[in-house]
Every structure is written in C-alpha cells, then in structure tokens.
C-alpha cells in the first residue's frame, strides 16, 4: 500500500466534524485549496456524533482497512502518489447491480453510473464523503466574489488523457453544458445561470442572473471537467460510450451487460494510482452479487440488502461496511385532499409520536438505519438543526393529543406506500400502519407497485403516502422541495417557511444560510408535514484485501483512496 494514502487514514485527527461542516465549507470557500485541517476544531454545535461510516449494533466494528476519518474539509486531495506505483499490476473488481446506459455525466445523475465515470472524469468541486461540505478538487479553490459571481481558481498543468489542456476554457465549456442539461434542471432553475467568463488561463468566473447559493451544490453534483474539442467532435451520446477526462483511470473496454474495464492513467496529475486495472462486473441479483463477493470473484459490492449483513458478518474474507445514507423514508401527510383530521397539526404530531422509530431501525433494518431527527435533514448534512430532536415514541401522549384535537375515537386514514421499489418498503409500510392503528386511527392500507404509485403521484391522487426520497446533500435541494407550490409539497407550511428557504438560497454566507435553514427546520418540526421515519444506511460488502475504502453519502463509489493487497 502506498504510504501516501496514510494521510487519509490518519488525517484529521479523526475528528468528527459535522456541526463544523459549516466552518469546513467556509474554509474551502475561502480558498483553502489543499488547506490543512487546522480550523476544524470539534465542530460548533452539539450535532457531532456519528457521521463517519458507522458500524451498527448488528454490524461489526469498522475494520482497520476502512477509513473512519469521516468528514474531510477542504483538503480532500491526497498527496501526490509515487512513480513506483507504475510497477504495480494490481487488480480490483467491483460488482454492480446494473449496466450504465451512458457514462456522460451531462446526461445522467444516477449515482450508480457516476460510480464508474467518477474514476475517469473529475469534478471541479466535490461533496465530502459525509455530504456535509463541498470541497475543491480540480478547482484549487472557489469563492463568491459577490452575490452573483463565483470565482474558480484551477489547478495548473493538468491535461485530459487525449492531450487537451484543462484550463478555464474547458471549465467554461463544461459549466455551459451542465447548466443547460435536462438531468440537472431540478438543481438549477433556467433563469439562474448567465455565463462563465474566462478571466485568465486558470481562472474562471461564473456569473448568475440572481443570487443562488445552491449553485455550489449543483457544481458538486454535476460539474465534471469535459474536454471541449473531443466532446464537441463526437457529441454527447458518443461521449457517453467513450468518455475522456482527467481522472486516474481511462476506459479500456465496455462489454454491454457484462463488464467495464478501466486502465490506470499513467500520467495522472496526482501520480499514478496503485491499482492497475479496475473491472466493474454487472451482477443484477443481490444474492448472486453477495455470493461473488464471498467467493472472491469481486472485491467490492455496493447497496446490499439488510439481509446480507448477517452473512457478511459471518464471513472471514469480507467485511460489511455501513455508512449513513440519504434516502429518507417518511409518511407524507396530504393535508390538501386528505381527511379533515390531518389539517390539525396536533394530529400530525400525535402520529409522529405513535411510531417507534428506534424499534424499526433495530428490527427491520437490523440497526443499519438512522431514525429521522424530527426534521428532513439528516444528521450529517449541512442544514441539519441540532437543536431539534426526534419525536419520541409515546403512545399515551399521542392518544392525549388526538383526544385534545377531538379525535379520541380515531378517524379514517388511507396510507399509500410503495411495494418492491426500495428494500424493506413493504415491511416498513405494514409496520407503520400497525403502529398508527394502535393509537386508535383506522388505517386503510394501500400498498402500490411503483409504476402505479408514480402515475397516481403525477395525477395528484396519491393522498397520504410513504416512500423514500433521495436528494443531493445540498440544503436547498431538500428544504426547497417543501415550499409552497413545489413538487413534493403535500402540506402548506406557510409563507414564512417559503420566505426563509428562498432567502437562504440567496445568501452566499454559510452562517446566514444555516441560521435561516434552522428556522425553516423548526417550522417543519412544529407543524410536521410528514411522519418522520428512518434513513437506511448504505451497506457495502468489502473484501478484506481492499484498503482505504471510503463510502460516500451520495452513494458514489470513489476509488481515489483505494488500494488492494
């Protein structure tokens, strides 16, 4: 194993750093390219706690080969790798559940696809592994010059693997492409982006039409560096079949529905990667992927079902690694067409008290999940309000609140939930309905297959529904979904909520942003538009020969720090 990766294993004094995500982002924003973690401190709020890949009660403790340093600040980029890596012929095999349709990041936001092209195409800026902060990558630093101008200073001396230089011109080309892309339309409204100005060879300035702070989040999610000449020459579809970037690997072979092979980029700007070949094998069935892992056919498998935990824990060759996820399961109350009772917030609070989230986490998810903390944001996300806590499980209080609201004898509530779309969604639906029934509400279960579920959602006839929503870890993409008139709004949180969120999206100062989001979270807690349930953790199966694996909250596989024995 190359010593250079040690930095990541030992770095950061292993400080948990969630509340401090704010400071980290600030630090990054203030241009600390490879900034050392001096200002990290212990984080500001009491929100600290478990952010790094946590091994849960059922899972083993995190093995030594797994990076637990957790959130990293501005200095995500490891020190340069030694040339001696060129001698290595090491191979790494990854099991995938599906074959990508394209490897062009402009056309897709699917994390499973990005898990492949992320090794080929590099980001200008990138979410830290915990999702709590945005760090520089190909851009050495980024800074808001004013409310509508973002300056990116680029790393120098980097070129694409076809020889094109990585410079401000290529950054302009890339940002233009992403800002116009349909796949990213939900992150960046059409009236936001104006243009990118090439200041000099290694400085680009993004100009916006109006203040829009989530632009950073958008860049961290999309915003890979594209080679302008090659991209323009072959077009977006062909680029998706044969992408070229600045990354540590290049695409060598792609056999549809079978495997994708990446070869090391010997001239990588940060030194050659210790692994010579990475192969992605497509194994759709979960159990087959698990078996391949056990027999050593593959070294790494992503997004395994909870039922895999016991098997992995019993294995001598494979470790189970869990990492806080972002798919948030909640029962969204429809107060617009739903029963009259739901209009009373005491009823909605009562329902939040009626469900034992911890028992669901321990029972159904075998510990590999986190209860939602009485708010939409997950603990590790920037925008989480540490002063709000989980609705406790309190049947008596729930019944009392229902009685107070005049529903001591309960009311009819239809609950629609997805079946077969997400792991454990059917069980989750059944158990939540059972809990609600126990406080006297007459629940009518309506489990739906996802196709029907989506079409009813589009028709607007879904009613109160339970499902798992996965949104990028940028607060505006989360809070913004519940403002008046937005896509996921099922309950009117009022003008003040919409105003706060809109205001936050205009503040480039992260402190100000956070204060506004905290207020919005409080409104959402006091007048809950949903029954906050659980956030399942992502489960990875990792061979014991793999070193330095760092799971990421955005579910993107990131092999920059990985080595194999």
């Amino acid at each position, binding site marked *: 194993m190359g010593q250079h990766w040690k930095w990541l294993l030992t770095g950061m004094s292993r400080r948990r750093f969630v509340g401090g995500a704010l400071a980290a982002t600030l630090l990054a924003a203030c241009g600390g390219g490879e900034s050392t973690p001096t200002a990290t401190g212990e984080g500001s709020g009491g929100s600290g706690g478990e952010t790094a890949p946590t091994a849960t009660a059922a899972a083993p403790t995190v093995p030594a080969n797994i990076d637990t340093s957790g959130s990293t600040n501005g200095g995500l980029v490891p020190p340069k790798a030694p040339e001696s890596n060129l001698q290595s012929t090491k191979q790494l095999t990854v099991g995938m559940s599906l074959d990508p349709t394209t490897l062009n990041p402009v056309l897709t936001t699917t994390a499973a696809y990005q898990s492949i092209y992320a090794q080929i195409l590099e980001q200008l800026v990138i979410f830290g592994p915990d999702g709590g902060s945005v760090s520089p990558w190909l851009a050495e630093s980024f800074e808001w010059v004013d409310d509508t101008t973002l300056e990116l200073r680029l790393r120098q001396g980097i070129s694409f693997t076809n020889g094109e230089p990585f410079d401000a011109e290529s950054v302009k080309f890339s940002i233009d492409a992403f800002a116009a892309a349909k796949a990213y339309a939900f992150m960046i409204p059409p009236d936001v982006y104006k243009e990118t100005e090439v200041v000099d060879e290694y400085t680009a300035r993004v100009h916006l039409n109006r203040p829009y702070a989530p632009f950073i989040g958008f860049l961290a999610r999309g915003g890979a560096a594209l080679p302008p000449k090659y991209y323009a020459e072959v077009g977006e579809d062909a680029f998706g079949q044969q992408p070229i970037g600045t990354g540590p690997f290049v695409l060598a072979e792609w056999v549809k529905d079978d495997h994708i092979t990446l070869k090391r980029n010997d001239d990588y700007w940060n030194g050659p990667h210790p692994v010579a070949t990475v192969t992605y094998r497509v194994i759709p069935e979960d159990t087959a992927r698990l078996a391949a892992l056990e027999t050593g056919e593959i070294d790494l498998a992503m997004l395994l079902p909870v*039922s895999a935990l016991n098997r992995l824990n019993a294995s001598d060759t494979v470790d189970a690694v869990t990492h806080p996820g972002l798919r948030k399961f909640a029962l969204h109350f429809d107060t617009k067409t739903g029963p009259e009772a739901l209009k009373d917030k005491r009823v909605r609070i009562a329902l939040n008290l009626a469900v034992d989230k911890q028992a669901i986490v*321990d*029972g159904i998810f075998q510990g590999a999940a986190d209860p939602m903390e009485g708010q939409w944001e997950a603990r590790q996300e920037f925008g989480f309000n540490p002063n709000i806590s989980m609705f406790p499980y309190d049947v008596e209080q729930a019944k009392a609140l229902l009685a107070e609201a005049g529903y001591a004898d309960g009311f009819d509530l239809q609950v629609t939930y997805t*079946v*077969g779309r997400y792991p454990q969604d059917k069980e989750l639906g059944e*158990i939540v309905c*059972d809990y609600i029934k126990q406080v006297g509400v007459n629940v009518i*279960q*309506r*489990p739906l297959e996802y196709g029907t579920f989506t079409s009813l959602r589009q028709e607007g006839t879904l009613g109160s529904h339970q499902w798992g929503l996965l949104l990028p870890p940028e607060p505006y993409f989360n809070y913004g979904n519940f403002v008046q008139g937005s896509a996921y709004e099922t309950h009117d949180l009022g003008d003040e909520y919409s105003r706060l969120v809109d205001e936050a999206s205009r503040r480039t100062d992260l402190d100000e942003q956070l204060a506004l989001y905290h207020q919005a979270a409080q409104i959402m807690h006091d007048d809950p538009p949903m029954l906050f349930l659980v956030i399942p953790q992502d489960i990875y199966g990792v061979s014991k020969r793999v070193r330095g694996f760092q799971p990421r909250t955005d579910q993107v596989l990131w092999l920059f720090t990985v080595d194999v024995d």
Partner: protein
Amino acid sequence: MSALSESLRAGREPAVQSVWARRFGVFWRSWETRISTLLLLVMIGVALVPTSVWPDTAFDSNLTLRHREPGLLMGTTDYLFGADALGRDVFFRILMGTKLTLLIAGLATLFATIIGSAAGLCAAYFRGWVDMVVSRLVDIMLAFPILLLVLALVAALGQSVSSVIIVLALSGWAGYARVIRSATLSLVEREFVEAARCTGARSGHILLRHLLPNVASPILVLSTLNLASFILTESSVSFLGLGPQPPAVTWGALIGDGRNYMYDAWWATLFPGLAIILTVLAFNLVGDAMRDAFDPHTRQ
C-alpha cells in the same frame, strides 16, 4: 351383482344407485385419497373460520418478536412455526391465509369451469364458425405462457383479489373448452340427442339437459385438478408481489415476504411452502381418484 339385487329388492331404481356406489368405492379405496380428502375438508373448515377468531398475534406486528424461532424447535406451543420479519405468528398467518388462497382458487375455478364448459359445449354442438372461433381462441390461449399472461393482466387490471380471480379464470378456461368440446363431439351424433331434436327441443334445452349431464364427470375431475394448479399460479403471482396486498394474506405472499430472510429465518418461507405443497398434492390425488372413479374401464 349383489348391489344390483339389493337395490332391486329395495325397489329402487337400480342403475343410478349402483353407478354412484361403484364410483365411490373406487374413489375411496386408497389410503392416499382418504387422507387427502380429510386434509382438504380440514382446510376448507379452516377457511370457513371467521377472521375475527384468529389471535392478535397473527395480525399485529411486534418487532421484539422478530424472527422468533419456531415453538416446534423449542418444544413450546406458542409461535409453533415461529414469527416473521414483523414478529407475527407464522402458524396463524398460514391458517389465516387459507381463506383467501382457497377462495381465489375456488372462485377462479368456478368461473373458468362455467366459461370453458359453455364454450366447449357450444363449439361441439353448433360446429361451423362457432367451433372455428372457439377452437382458435383455445389454441391461442394454450400457446400463451400462462404466468406471463397472468402477470400482464394483473398489471393492467391492478392488484386486488377480484382481479386475480378474473385473471386466473381467463387464463384457465381454455383447458376446459378443449376437453368438453371433444367429449361433447362424441355425444352430439348419438340417438338421444337426435331424439331430443326430433321432439322439437330447443338448442339451449339440449345443451343443458342432455349434453351437460353427460360431460359432468370430466368437468368435475378437471375442476379438482384445476384448483390445484390455480393455487400454484396464485402463489406465484403473490410471490412476485402482484397478488392481493396487505393486510390481506395468501400463502404465496407469505413465501414472498419470507424469501428475503431465508438465510436468517427459514421458517417464514418453509411452512407456507409446505401448506401449498400438501394442499396441491391433496387436490391432485383426489382429482386422480375421481378420474379413476368416473372411468368406466376402472374395475372395483
């Protein structure tokens, strides 16, 4: 001969009595059939028990009892077949599931029988274009992979008990039509049909009063065998998650739910599976015995 003389002495009409007696004798002679019949009677009895009788442990989830081991293994009688992923009693859920499983298979068989028999009788009796249309439809249906058809139809009609019944009936009638058609073909030229026609009987009368009773035995045998295959198909559909949805319970759905945890809690899958195997086997054995009983070549 003794049966005949006995009934003669009793002054009853001899033929009918002796035929049914002989048939029952053939039917009841093997111990497999007797056990199967008893088992099916018990199943039907269980299915008739009102849902409210089952204990709460069958409905109410209790996460502290998740995947509790079967009482069978631990020598206790509570949670005899263990608990499922939500801590519900598998034994009582299987008993509860009997009702819907048998109801779906039974009603679907009834409808398939009615549609298939009517089509078969009409095709053989009227011949011409009616026969043409029915036969081609039957060919199409029989050439189609049944499960695929069922899945497509359920997806189109939506998931509910009634849609599963409709779909099963639609997929199962063709088998009847073919058998009944050929059975009827050999009858329509017979003298009693001729005679009925000559006396001016209308087609409907001939079909229902003269032809139907004569094909009753293949219908009965087919229905019994069909019930078994419908139970299997319904289980497959429920297993794939397209059957009746919670809180409704069928055996196939129980297997589908348990499948994810086969590694940790095999009992949630094994016991519903055994229930299906035993019931299907029993229906098949009873069907076979009935076929033998109705076959004039079988001797007592």
